[in-house]
């Protein structure tokens, strides 16, 4: 029963901290919209467990000019792959 967690607000929202308190080891996180700003600062990502996969929406990174600044920990994906991730995980938990 792994979950895909989506986060669409900037680090100021503290949504990632909240999500990490209740995330399970085989879950994954997808940053989209203003959530993609998490991916340009290592300190934002350092609290995410190794087992948790981290994705970020390429379209939103392109719009915001953060793609080239995005850390290696994060895999850039498009919306089609976002749909695929929803299929691979048994549910989607949206943090907004």
């Amino acid at each position: 029963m792994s979950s895909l967690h989506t986060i669409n607000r900037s680090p100021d929202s503290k949504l990632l901290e909240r999500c990490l308190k209740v995330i399970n080891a085989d879950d994954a996180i997808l940053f989209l919209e203003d959530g993609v700003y998490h991916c340009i600062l290592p300190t934002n990502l350092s609290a995410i467990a190794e087992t948790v996969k981290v994705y970020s929406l390429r379209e939103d990174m392109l719009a915001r000019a953060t793609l080239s600044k995005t850390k290696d920990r994060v895999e850039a994906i498009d919306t089609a792959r976002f749909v695929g991730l929803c299929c691979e995980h048994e549910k989607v938990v949206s943090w907004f």
Partner: protein
Amino acid sequence: MKFSIVIYAAPYSTESAASALRFAESLIQQGHELYRLFFFGDGVHNASKLTVVAQDEINLQLQWSKLIEEHDIDSVICVSSALRRGVLDQTEADRHGLGAASAYESSEVAGLGQLVDASLHSDRVVNFG
């Protein structure tokens, strides 16, 4: 897979409605089924048809309606959210003597039971807010 999508956000004020639209288009393109769209809270504004958008900008409400019609999607505007926000189909407009409908005909005004039904009959429910 069967998806349903719940949209809580008005168009333009945040990106969520636009993200939901891109997500919906993509899943259909991949051959998945979109069982239901459910517009809730401020999300009901996505079904407003009285909009005028500059030619160089995207008209989200129109894009939703085109997608819904083209793929014959079951699209629901939550009645309790819609009435107080002035998003009415012809039935509700007539019932309350408010003249013309303000919602696209491609969406239907209905209750939260449609959300429960979507939860039961979809493999995935994805929320955008």
